[in-house]
């Protein structure tokens, strides 16, 4: 074994590399407070691995994105578990990056010629948020579509280049298949590539500056401990704990997938993922032309102070108790974000109509996730084509079904959408004459759900019902 190691070492310098990596001296000794940076890197690697598996099945286009995600969730072995691990992993990334920032800020570890190190970390923070934003659209379900529509509209508010930026990101004026492919490229190639590059820079600058150690100078002088073995064990232990917890959560509460995006649905209530809820609530307070202040100017000022912190806070003092302005401002921002998040949830719960609709949406998501996988029938609907061959009346019925925009609410093959119930299997419940009657004069329940009377000739109505009856 040792001969093999020697052979490798002569050719690669492996032992020297390991000594360099593991022999880093930590002022004040190993601490649990230092685990977040390397923990974050390992969670990111877990995201890369699960993401590669998801990419085996995903097709980045508006007409295939949702069905391929549904396929991996409902048919592929462990597909739902892998997707859940990936989805919850994005939340874990946000939590760990916040813990890493909090530890660095409270310990004053950005001080002492570490300005570029801190700024590289800020870029990584933004890239992690960018990963979360671009990944959210990819399933192309209702919440993904509407949350991203709002998110990309915010880009339009950026002074001078807003409209240009929005069109570039969306690939046009409206969200569509180019938006999916652009977000996919950003999520899978551009942002991860940038993350790897900035992690390299961040680690290089960290090793150049050396670990800052505890905030108290005396504690830092007491002793020095090498990175290996205790700090390495703590770091790996922390990352493994997170990944095991994520695995348990993904196993017990698999991430749900909603029905495919339906831009015509005006009843859907878009709500972002939890980490963007404070921003969502914040946008409510900036009315009319003052929106630019809330959407661009204030966040830009906060970002400038955050990124430029090592330049503004020049005192060598690192003890948090002696830096009340910096630590207080950070805590105030965190508390404000938490308060905005709580306010958003409270407002949604207080309005019975909103609470009811959100509960209905969760139920629709749950039902869709539980339903068996329906393979895509291309080019239009094989079922309908077969039915049309058997009975030409159903072909005419299909044309009327589309001409009357029934497909907009009931789906292109009567499979139903969040806006209206499925029509498949209706023939077993209602005789043809009863169906014709309720299509002409919808019941109160149907009217409340948005159903309009179908005003067509009796003959057209007959073939429309024939088509609905043929849906299987």
């Amino acid at each position, binding site marked *: 074994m040792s001969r093999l190691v020697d052979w490798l070492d002569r050719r690669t310098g492996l032992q020297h590399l390991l000594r360099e990596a593991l022999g880093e001296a930590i002022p004040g000794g190993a601490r649990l407070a230092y685990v977040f940076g390397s923990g974050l890197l390992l969670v990111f690697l877990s995201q890369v691995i699960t993401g590669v598996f998801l990419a085996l099945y995903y097709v980045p286009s508006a007409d295939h994105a949702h069905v391929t995600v549904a396929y991996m969730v409902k048919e592929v072995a462990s597909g739902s578990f892998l997707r859940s691990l990936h989805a919850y992993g994005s939340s874990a990334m946000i939590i760990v990056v916040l813990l890493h920032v909090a530890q660095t800020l409270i310990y004053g570890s950005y001080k002492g010629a570490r300005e570029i190190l801190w700024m590289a970390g800020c870029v990584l923070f933004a890239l992690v948020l960018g990963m979360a934003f671009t990944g959210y659209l990819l399933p192309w379900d209702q919440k993904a579509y509407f949350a991203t529509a709002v998110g990309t509209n915010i880009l339009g508010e950026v002074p001078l280049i807003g409209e240009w930026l929005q069109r570039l990101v969306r690939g*046009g004026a409206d969200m569509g298949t180019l938006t999916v492919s652009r977000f996919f490229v950003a999520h899978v190639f551009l942002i991860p590539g940038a993350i790897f590059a900035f992690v390299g820079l961040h680690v290089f600058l960290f090793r150049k500056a050396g670990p800052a150690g505890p905030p108290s100078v005396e504690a830092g002088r007491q002793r020095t401990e090498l990175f290996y073995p205790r700090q390495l064990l703590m770091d790996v232990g922390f990352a493994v704990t997170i990944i095991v917890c994520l695995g348990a959560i993904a196993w017990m509460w698999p991430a749900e997938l909603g029905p495919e995006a339906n831009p015509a649905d005006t009843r859907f209530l878009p709500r972002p993922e939890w980490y963007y809820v404070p921003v969502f609530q914040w946008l*409510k307070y900036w009315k009319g032309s003052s929106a630019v202040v809330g959407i661009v100017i204030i966040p830009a000022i906060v970002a400038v102070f955050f990124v430029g912190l090592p330049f503004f806070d020049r005192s060598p003092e690192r003890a948090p108790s002696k830096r009340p302005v910096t630590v207080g401002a950070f805590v105030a921002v965190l508390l404000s974000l938490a308060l905005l998040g709580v306010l958003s949830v409270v407002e949604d719960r207080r309005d019975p109509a909103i609470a009811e609709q959100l509960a209905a949406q969760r139920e629709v998501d749950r039902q869709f996730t539980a339903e068996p996988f329906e393979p895509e029938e291309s080019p239009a609907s094989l079922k309908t084509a077969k039915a049309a061959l058997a009975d030409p009346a159903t072909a005419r019925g299909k044309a009327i079904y589309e001409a009357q*925009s029934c497909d907009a609410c009931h789906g292109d093959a009567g499979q139903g959408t969040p806006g209206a119930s499925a029509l498949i299997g209706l023939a077993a419940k209602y005789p043809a004459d009863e169906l014709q009657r309720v299509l002409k004069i919808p019941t109160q329940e149907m009217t409340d759900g948005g159903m309009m009377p179908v005003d067509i000739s009796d003959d057209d109505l007959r073939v429309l019902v024939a088509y609905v009856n043929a849906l299987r």
Partner: protein
Amino acid sequence: MYPLRRKPGEVAWSDIGPTTDLTPLAAPVKMLVEIEQRDGWRKMISTKPVYVTRTAEGRLRVLSAVCPHLGCSVAWNDSRRQFSCPCHVGVFAEDGALVSGPPPRGMDELDSTVEDGRLKVRYQYFRQLVTTREIIA
């Protein structure tokens, strides 16, 4: 940089339905219009929701359901007799005028016309977060 320099094509008129279906109109009614549009390499028929209202003079008006704040879909609330945006609580009157909330302007009116007794609309997109109605596509 594509499609920044691509010039948008002419917007065609889409059929909403016979005007007789819209008489009387006690409240704004949601209609779905089908528009043929290019989505990257796809040529597709897309369904868009619009609201048809009637002015005091009896003229039919067609309003876009896209909120001029951040683009969520506006819904008509029959019991409150007003439109409301489910995202950031923008509220609009029956005629689409802004009542309260963050939107910078009222709901956008779409160009509409009546031909041979049928209401037609030209579906367009407008810039969000500005006080004036600016067509972007």
